[in-house]
């Protein structure tokens, strides 16, 4: 029944690539090159970890949101992120890796997550900046990934994009309220933009020329647009939004380039990117330590559920005997 019978690896690879070239999705039981599987597990799990770790900087403000309405919104958003982590872990698991292995890789530091979540949320305006800029950048990436070649990942992205439509708008609404406030509130909003702008641009990853995975990922259509293309798209769409706030982006090199039809912008501090990505960000240790702590503190719940299941099974077996 399986397509891998009586075929050489080269033939199977040809069939696989022809399918990808033809814009057909690859589904879990299809034959796929081992490197495609590995690359997907790396990317999807990194994406899942980002959703889950991303709950921490925002969760930091749930108890201190300025109004009940803002609190309810923030709770709903953080809850969404947890759900998105689940969709993505499940997609990764269709590739033959277990949830336990994925979590262990996050906790040991072997697996990465978006470096943006290693920055602290110092003021309420940071919650606005994260929703608007960080979710905004994530959405640009995720909209593109709806067309990824792996079926379960693609379907997860469609679901996530649909649910995430409110995340960016609620963030911008916070910024809008602060931008129309008093001097102190405006200063707070500008400070949040100053701190989150560059890390948001880093979310798209290294330049195409320096990206270890981009070439192969584009050929396999895991990625549909390159890091630099997506980053440019994000910059172009954000400039207008900053103008409406009557605020500034912290980049003296930002200007319209008539010839390119895009905004030019300054160079990212790649040393900071590397530092933050490899555990040297301001909150890196805290984020992973908190995840481990929550996981360990929840162990008794998992144990109790298992004990209950075993007891019920024993009872059923006894009744059947």
């Amino acid at each position, binding site marked *: 029944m399986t397509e891998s019978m009586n075929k050489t690896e080269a033939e199977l690879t040809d069939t696989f690539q022809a399918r990808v070239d033809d814009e*057909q*999705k*690859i*589904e879990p039981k299809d034959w796929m090159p081992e490197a495609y599987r590995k690359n997907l597990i790396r990317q999807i799990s990194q994406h899942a970890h980002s959703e889950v770790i991303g709950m921490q900087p925002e969760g930091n403000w749930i108890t201190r949101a300025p109004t009940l*309405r803002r609190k*309810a*919104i923030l709770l*709903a958003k953080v809850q969404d992120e947890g759900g998105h982590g689940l969709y993505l872990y499940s997609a990764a698991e269709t590739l033959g890796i277990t949830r336990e292995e994925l979590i262990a890789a996050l906790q040991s530091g072997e697996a990465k997550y978006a470096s943006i979540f290693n920055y602290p949320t110092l003021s309420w305006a940071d919650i606005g900046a994260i929703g608007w800029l960080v979710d*905004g950048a994530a959405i640009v990436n995720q909209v593109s990934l709806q067309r990824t070649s792996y*079926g379960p990942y*693609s*379907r997860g992205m469609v679901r996530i994009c649909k649910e995430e*439509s*409110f995340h*960016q*708008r*609620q963030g*911008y*609404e916070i910024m*809008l309220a602060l931008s129309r406030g008093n001097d102190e509130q405006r200063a707070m909003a500008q400070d949040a933009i100053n701190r989150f702008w560059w890390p948001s641009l880093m979310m798209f990853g290294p330049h195409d020329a320096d990206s270890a995975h981009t070439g192969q990922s584009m050929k396999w259509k895991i990625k549909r647009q390159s890091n630099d293309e997506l980053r440019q798209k994000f910059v172009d769409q954000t400039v*207008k*939004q900053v*103008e*409406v706030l009557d605020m500034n982006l912290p980049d003296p090199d930002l200007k319209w380039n008539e010839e390119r039809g895009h905004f030019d912008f300054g160079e990212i501090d790649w040393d900071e990117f590397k530092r933050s990505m490899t555990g040297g960000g301001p909150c890196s240790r805290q984020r992973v330590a908190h995840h481990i702590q929550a996981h360990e503190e929840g162990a008794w719940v998992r144990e109790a559920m298992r004990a209950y299941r075993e007891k019920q099974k024993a009872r059923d077996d006894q009744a059947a005997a």
Partner: protein
Amino acid sequence: MSEDNMHLYEVFIRSKRGLDHKHVGSLHAEDPEQALEYARDVYTRRSEGVSIWVVNSSHIFASQEDDNESFYDPMDDKPYRHATHYQLPDAVNNM
């Protein structure tokens, strides 16, 4: 053998790569292999699909619509979960 002993299977079909499997109906069979063959014969005579799942009906655990109120909340009191809840200036409203 009596037909009463045949298992009920639910049939799900993926109409095209990239789409979810969708429930299309059910049938009786002795085992999963046979259910798969029956499903092929009954539910895919007009190129309806590229992949079939069969699931023993007794393995499906389902919520009841009558229990909705106590089982899950439609969240109608939480309009802020929808993008349309946020009023933004026209210049940036396509966000």
